């Protein structure tokens, strides 16, 4: 599956090849990693990879997968695998709200072609305004929210299709929960 941190960055292809309660084999972006895993009574587990021991725990929230690896906390969203950055120049097939908040302004329209770094939506959260910007050149396929909407953490705001310069993409609906 493709996983991306909720507030952006590149998506990673993660595949669990085998996990039998003692050993685990996965690939991350095609690189195979083998290690050990010990399940814990509380629903977490201890991972051992390359001699490093990490306590992991996780939960599924409404719009995100939340995990802790030691003291570090992460939130991921699953993204549709076929429209990868490598294929069509898209960093991600959609953009999600990095925190709960209110949509103050929608800066783009459906069908618009946006450039990397261009502002898409202004969110108000915790009394601060945050502008959500495009992570790559793209075409705005669908805007799923409008001004004034309250949005939840991880909720999909906008879906993209590749920018026109790229070959047309197959249908790629976001795989929201």
């Amino acid at each position: 599956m493709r996983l991306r941190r909720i507030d952006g960055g590149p998506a990673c292809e993660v595949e669990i090849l085998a996990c039998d309660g003692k050993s685990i084999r996965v690939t991350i972006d095609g690189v195979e990693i083998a290690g050990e895993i010990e399940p814990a009574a509380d629903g977490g587990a201890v991972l051992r990879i390359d001699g490093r021991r990490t306590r992991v725990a996780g939960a599924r929230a409404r719009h995100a997968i939340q995990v802790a690896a030691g003291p570090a906390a992460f939130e991921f969203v699953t993204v549709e695998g076929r429209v990868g950055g490598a294929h069509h120049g898209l960093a991600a097939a959609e953009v999600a709200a990095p925190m709960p908040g209110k949509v103050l302004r929608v800066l783009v329209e459906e069908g618009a072609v946006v450039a990397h770094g261009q502002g898409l939506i202004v969110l108000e959260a915790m009394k601060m305004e945050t502008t959500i910007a495009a992570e790559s050149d793209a075409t705005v396929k669908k805007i799923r929210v409008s001004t004034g909407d309250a949005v939840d953490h991880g909720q999909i705001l906008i879906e993209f299709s590749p920018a026109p310069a790229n070959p047309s993409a197959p249908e790629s609906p976001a795989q929201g929960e």
Partner: protein
Amino acid sequence: MTGRKIRKLLIANRGEIALRVIRTARAMGIATVAVYSDADRSAAHALAADEAIALGASEPAHSYLNIAAIIRAARASGADAIHPGYGFLSERPEFARAVRDHELIFVGPPAKVMAALGDKVAARRLAVKAGTPVVPGVETGELGAARKFADRAGYPILVKAAAGGGGRGMRVVGEASALEAALVAAAREAQAAFGDGRVFLEKYLARPRHVEIQLLGDRHGEVVAFGERDCSIQRRHQKIIEEAPAPGLAEATRTRMVEAALALARAAGYQNAGTAEFLLDGDEFYFLEVNARLQVEHPVTELRFGRDLVAEQLRIAAGERVGAPPEPRGCAIECRINAEDPEHDFRPATGRVASLTLPAGPGVRVDTHLGVGAEVSPHYDSLAAKLIAYGADREEARARMVAALEEFSLVGIRTTAALLRDVIASEAFARADLSTHFLEEHMPRWRPDDGATRAALIAAALVAEGRLGATRGGESANGAAGGAAKARPSPWTALAGFATGGRR
């Protein structure tokens, strides 16, 4: 008001500090009354107290800042004293006055003292009168005088709000041409934030440490100092790591600092717990401000002196005399784990705790109000937990803190725990290269390391496949054992996502 035993204490606060005060009161045989907002109906502090009284809506103005409602709750419950905690109303003279006007004991200094110290310009004058060194500056925002001072003292210059706090209304001015605009902007910001647009100027210290003295004063005019704390490591002008003693502080400087703080406290007629804050630049120190309340970081002093400062506060408020502080021993470090995103400029994070593992062990103390199901809402400050580690020396305290932070795990809300771990484990912190710019200097653009990110990706994939963790709906899926050992649902795991009165 003369000495009066406290029988029932109302805690006008929430979160870890309310819980912490309740625990001490209970150990002293004092009944406790919690107050809570709508968002906190099932919060830890409300459940921990003997009684809990609703104040109003979640916004602080309707609840924890609502003086009338808090006084009403005190009257209704028959409380005879109010502890304000820190933040909220703790440094509002009008609150202290209202409490005393209703013949209740306020666990803090008199309103008049609080008012005198709350104004930064007035406090600065008081310090000068008491012979306490202050940062060179002028008490005016008038352009001509400001320019004259800045030319003499040299840039950079700091413009500060007289009524300020938390970095608001504060501007660093690098050169003469930027002075006028900075004065105007700081005044506007101060007016908006505090309803008081007065500003003043100080010389900007390039790489200072923040060192503060813990004070306790009684009603009989006695003031004592419980040593110092170094709180240099900050983000956005707010402390995140504090320790006692201040490493590498020359004994002579420490003595002069303690004496300056005591002189100031005596001049102000200070009572109860308070802290005199200083900037330390080499061996020179300069008075910053007095915080007329218990500080967030008081536990490092408690561990080092073996005293419960809240118990001391309650005894002082009841009219008892403060005794000489015991000999301090060892070292203590505190880390504030905030619900913030350290990868995005520490913006506040919110959410519900899905799972939580807290550290323990020799010399480790955890002060937190969070548990599984607890919600961090946008209404209140971002402090999620305080970890405090004690050791016979700094290295032992530091090693225990690293281990404690590595044990800490929270799913559901992003926190600063991993950043703090990296700071405490860093070579720069180990050799105590401390300054208020520590993060910019040593941890710019912090990110979790690749090993943690890789483990997190694997964990996320396991969660997505239902082989790890508990789902929000309440169904546990502890199936790291190949997905074969699907959850053994029990009432306990099923309740993991459940909280009454929650917003979701």
